[in-house]
């Protein structure tokens, strides 16, 4: 054997031994998590968000009972090769470290894999009309875990705004009260105008959320053509058409509405026509609207469901949009004094837990005390009461995952801002309350929190 052949043989033999040893080491080593893929924002904002755990080898015989999530959250799981996918039907909580544990069947003993994921804190936007600059209203954003407040957009006389995935839709009013609808792309703050009829007022500006559509109603003054009376339109920002599309009713004509609400996570909406009939419509498709009966008021959706809550003079009910089934909503009493006034109700779940704004007039002081009550099968308790006497609660809105409640409060010195559309008050602010504890998580200047 020549030196060349000897060297070659030694090199090849050494490499074969190394490869064999490493292969053996890999074969006997317990499985491990290579990485976890997830979108933290989707986990707290969308139903059905997923976490994919990539293991370094396929695992046989894994059952749901082998998987735990702490803090507890409902989930389903799928396994494909070395990937284990956990799907969360409900939105997870904000700012929480979740520990995912997988007990893997091994040879005689069981191995537990752990992966931690952290969900982000939400950013809440508010509209500030008594801003430091008296000539410019501001849309502010602030993370719930603290940090500085950011001015996302400023313009004279902002009437409404709605959040789109990477844009803000904003209606502003000129001196004559005429409205302009703009899309503000963030963070550049470049603006594109959506064409609307001259002199038309724009109301009920609402976003479909992650599905990225915008809805609003148009109304023209008497005698102005075209004659529009709360005609519902939608706009798809990805189309760049620059003009909205009227939503049509059962008769194929543009639909005038009293109210409407987007179905969470979809491009569909439920509109309440002027005759109080409800229609389920997907404006992106040409399908005919689906009638859902007539009801007095839309109360939004049960959190993490596609179940619509409606109210009538004789009580509330829920409509499951997946089946069309209507069920009377039996809510327990709120145990509040008989002389108090019941205000806005937000239903939390199908078991009848709900939040209610209650006001107690005190005629001796000539003032009214407001509070938020959490009621349910286990009884009722006060969740939040403003610190100052005489502070009013204007409205309260749940975060998408029902973890927090944004409460608009108006101080006693607050006065109407006299806006012709969506009028509000001076000295108005928003507090964010933890629904489970009642603790105030954050105070924000302004009103109309993005969860409303």
């Amino acid at each position, binding site marked *: 054997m*020549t*030196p*060349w052949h000897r*060297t*070659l043989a030694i*090199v*090849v033999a050494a*490499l*074969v031994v*190394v*490869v064999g040893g*490493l*292969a053996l*080491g*890999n*074969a006997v*080593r317990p499985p*491990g998590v*290579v*990485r976890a*893929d997830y979108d933290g924002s989707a986990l707290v904002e969308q139903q059905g968000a997923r976490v*994919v755990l*990539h*293991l*370094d*080898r*396929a695992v046989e015989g894994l059952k749901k009972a082998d998987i735990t999530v702490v803090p507890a959250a409902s989930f389903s799981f799928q396994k494909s*090769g*070395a*990937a284990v996918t956990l799907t969360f039907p409900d939105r997870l909580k904000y700012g929480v470290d979740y520990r995912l544990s997988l007990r893997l069947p091994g040879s005689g003993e069981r191995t537990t894999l752990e992966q931690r994921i952290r969900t982000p804190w939400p950013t809440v936007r508010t509209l500030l009309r008594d801003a430091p600059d008296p000539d410019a209203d501001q849309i502010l954003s602030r993370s719930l875990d603290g940090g500085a407040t950011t001015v996302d957009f400023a313009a004279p006389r902002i009437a409404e705004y709605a959040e789109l995935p990477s844009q803000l839709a904003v209606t502003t009013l000129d001196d004559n009260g005429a409205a302009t609808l703009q899309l503000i792309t963030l963070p550049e703050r470049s603006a594109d105008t959506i064409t609307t009829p001259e002199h038309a007022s724009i109301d009920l500006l609402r976003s479909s959320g992650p599905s990225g559509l915008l809805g609003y109603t148009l109304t023209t003054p008497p005698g102005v053509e075209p004659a529009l009376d709360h005609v519902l339109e939608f706009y798809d920002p990805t189309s760049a058409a620059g003009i909205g599309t009227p939503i049509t009713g059962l008769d194929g004509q543009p639909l005038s509405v009293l109210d409407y609400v987007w179905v969470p996570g979809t491009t569909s909406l439920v509109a309440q026509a002027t005759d109080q009939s409800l229609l389920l419509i997907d404006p992106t498709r040409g399908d005919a609207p689906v009638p859902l009966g007539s009801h007095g008021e839309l109360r939004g959706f049960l959190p993490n469901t596609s179940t619509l809550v409606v109210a009538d003079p004789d009580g509330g009910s829920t409509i499951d949009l997946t089946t069309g089934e209507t069920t009377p909503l039996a809510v327990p009493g709120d145990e509040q004094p008989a002389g108090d006034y019941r205000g806005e109700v937000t239903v939390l779940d199908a078991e009848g837990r709900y939040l209610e704004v209650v006001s107690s007039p005190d005629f001796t002081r000539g003032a009214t005390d407001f509070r938020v009550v959490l009621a349910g099968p286990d009884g009722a308790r006060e969740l939040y009461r403003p610190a100052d006497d005489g502070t009013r609660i204007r409205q309260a809105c749940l975060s998408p995952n029902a973890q927090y409640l944004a409460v608009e409060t108006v101080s006693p010195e607050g006065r109407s801002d006299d806006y012709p559309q969506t009028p509000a008050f001076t000295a108005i602010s928003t507090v964010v309350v933890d629904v489970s504890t009642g603790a105030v998580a954050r105070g924000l200047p302004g009103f109309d929190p993005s969860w409303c």
Partner: protein
Amino acid sequence: MVLTREPAIAPARRRSRWRPVLVLGAVLLVLVGLRIATSGGTVSLTNAVQDFVTLSLSVVIESLPFVILGVLISTVVQLWVPDRWFFAILPRNGVLRRGVLSLLGVLLPVCECGNVPLARGLVVRGLSVPEAMTFLLAAPILNPITIVTTVQAFGWGDGIVVWRILGGFLIANFVGWLLTRHPHPDAMLTPDFQAACAAHAHDADDRTHRLSRGARMVTAEMSAVLPALFVGSALAGLIQVAISREVLVGLGGDPVLSVLALMALAFVVAMCSNVDAFFVLSLGSTFSPGAIVAFLVFGPMIDVKMLALMRTTFTARTLLIVTGVVALFVAALGLGLNLAR
């Protein structure tokens, strides 16, 4: 100094330069025949034949620009780059010299198939076989385009980029060192190529009519390399049709088989190193990082198309040794990374 070679260690066999073209023509004839046989008079092919044609053509289309570029650069290097420029920058110490050559891809960021004609030109100019092999194995990985696309695909986070660069450098230099132990390195060249080297040494002092000589060299290189590219591409297409990609991908869950599967896939798909990171990115959710690194290191060095191209220059025995050593080294790298996680 010009490193001239001995005329020929082994007598050069005069093989017809038309032979690869004839092979290609035969392949095309078979394809046309299959097309006619399966079309029934209309223009349609069975899925397998369509896949074969598409896959083969995609490799050719992907590689051809780089091969032409490599031939042109090779010609320029042979005719117009003075020795004092080229060899002055190379250290005399063998290890350092191969180290510098393995980084030459930074200056010449072409795909691995474009490096073959360039390496042939460098050997003609006097580079030794181990040095040329070091360059051939390292340059497809250690070049800016490959590094940038790998970073774009995987980022720096999980070490895939670092291990691709490091693995490419170490393996190329190791193979280069190993080949220096050969008692007659020139015997690792094919007889035809040895003859070409000898002819160049004879003409080295002729500095007249460089343009016409350049044109002849381009023509000669093209006729040597292009048939090999076509045959290699056809083989790549054929193997991909014959071996289900799903079968290889199905092995992704196993820490040992996943490495071997992606090495096999890299060998079969014969993808340019400049774009292979985006291809394997789609497998990132199925395969371990060790397997991904094995794909990204092995593919640019050894694949079916590269072997066909390198066969124009190196003997089959040499390619067998290089392929074996590279495969074992890459497998060790991939398995080691899997074990370390």
